């Protein structure tokens, strides 16, 4: 077990109980009326969902950066999150949200569609450049269709619902979302963890990895499935929550020896921690309406990305 697993595991163990108490109303188990019900039905599922979504996005980011050998890669760039968002937007457009299962189901279908398209274009050759370009095109297509759905929304209410939903949040989530996301994200993280050794070999480039016996085609399929499950399930239950996959591997890397295989599990833990803390913070911040989690993380993530670019430019100069 590496140091990063211990550090982020411990921090998560401390943050989880604290986040159960934090909120617009601070919870004191002895003094607050109905504390047990609030905990069991509101705070605990929300906290667990933050952990699940964050773990999936963190692990996906670490695997993505390892595969593309680029510290600026983010799973959001590769069409799976926009695909899932498009699925959810379609559900909102047609007003299917009356049944609680339909929106996440449509989002998963959208993620699956994006994965299938990505695999159909880039899956056979296993080339990294082709994969990146295909992902970007899937992302723009899904983005364009989402914009089309917004501009042609049947009524103002549907439009505001779509726009609000696109800025991800964990407000008013229940055990239903937890039971939906947990197995999918769990399976996805397991698949991504299994790619670790192959990602280590990719450190020396694609031809060396192949010469070491890595089946790059199978690796790509496993990554598409792993990222599809983690990111697709996250978007399905929480909407678009950007930048977690980009930031988290950078927080983890200094605590490891930088091998991609050593980053995946600690990135899942650190992602869980980041989303949990951010979601607790938006609950506590004294705004009239709660700040959307997706917006809060983007406000954090974009300046971080810029700082990263400035640091890289200094390194190159």
């Amino acid at each position, binding site marked *: 077990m590496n140091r990063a697993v211990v550090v982020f595991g411990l921090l998560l163990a401390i943050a989880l109980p604290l986040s159960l108490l934090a909120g617009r109303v601070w919870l004191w188990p002895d003094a607050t009326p109905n504390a047990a019900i609030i905990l069991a039905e509101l705070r605990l599922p929300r906290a667990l969902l933050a952990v699940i979504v964050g773990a999936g996005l963190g692990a996906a980011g670490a695997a993505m950066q390892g595969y593309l050998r680029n510290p600026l890669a983010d799973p959001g760039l590769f069409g799976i999150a926009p695909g899932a968002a498009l699925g959810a937007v379609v559900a909102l457009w047609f007003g299917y949200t009356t049944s609680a299962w339909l929106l996440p189901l449509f989002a998963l279908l959208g993620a699956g569609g994006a994965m299938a398209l990505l695999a159909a274009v880039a899956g056979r050759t296993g080339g990294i450049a082709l994969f990146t370009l295909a992902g970007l095109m899937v992302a723009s297509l899904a983005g364009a269709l989402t914009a089309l759905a917004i501009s042609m929304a049947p009524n103002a209410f549907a439009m505001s619902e779509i726009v609000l939903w696109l800025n991800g949040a964990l407000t008013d989530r229940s055990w239903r979302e937890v039971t939906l996301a947990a197995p999918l994200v769990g399976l996805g993280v397991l698949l991504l963890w299994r790619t670790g050794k192959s990602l*280590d070999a990719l450190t*020396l480039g694609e031809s060396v990895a192949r*010469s070491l*016996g890595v089946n790059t085609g199978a690796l790509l399929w496993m990554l598409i499935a792993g990222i599809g499950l983690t990111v697709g399930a996250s978007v399905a239950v929480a909407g678009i929550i950007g930048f977690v996959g980009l930031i988290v591997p950078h927080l983890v890397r200094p605590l490891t*020896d930088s*091998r991609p295989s050593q980053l995946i599990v600690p990135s899942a833990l650190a992602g869980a921690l980041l989303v949990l803390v951010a979601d607790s913070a938006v609950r506590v911040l004294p705004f009239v309406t709660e700040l959307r989690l997706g917006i809060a993380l983007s406000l954090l993530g974009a300046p971080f990305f810029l700082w990263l670019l400035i640091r890289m430019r200094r390194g190159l100069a």
Partner: protein
Amino acid sequence: MTLIAQNLSIGNRLHDVSLALKPGQITAICGPNGAGKSSLLEALAGLLPPDEGAVNLGDSSLAKLHPRERAKGIGYLPQAHEIAWDVPVRSLIELGRMPHGDTRAEPVDAAIAALDLGPLENRRAQSLSGGETARVLLARVLAGEPAWILADEPLAALDIGHQLALLRHLRAAAEGGAGVVLVLHDLAHAMNHADRVVVLDRGRIVAAGAPGYALASDIIDDVWNVKARWLREAKHHLLLLS
């Protein structure tokens, strides 16, 4: 274990190339730019499937061999010294054990000792100089104990001292029983250090045999369009251009 190419053709890069390589020797592949040297090496390593023909490692065709089994037999060193992450040197060398599914200390330590990398073992990859990186990457190949070492221009970007040192290490590997195949641009290095030279031109083998035969002045004139002759100084050959 022999490595045999039979009637290889790949697009317009290689045409009907047949070659039988023997272990325990250094074979140099020479030729002008675009002759198909790297394509031939990649095909021999099983990384570039031929349109026609086959490469056989011992009794098995590379196309039918499981990638892991192929990787145990053939170590490949590309021209580019790409190291994406700042990982510890030892973990890079341990990657050579990947086809075997272990990180056994013995072959890794042997590779580190063979290339005098002891002092660098605990450094990070991106703190190494070009010459050190070249040694570490060769150690990665040696750690896998492959029967064949295939290297694409391993001497490019190295100063002359490091070139000779790397050639000494490759010679030691050949004397240990490995087959070594190198793509070389420097004809004098091929002449002085290879046991056998294969000259490629526009995807076809023009000459193959002892260096003195395959790199004779008239072949250099035909293939490279350069008038040159060899001078002999003690045991070494110098290429004199005119």
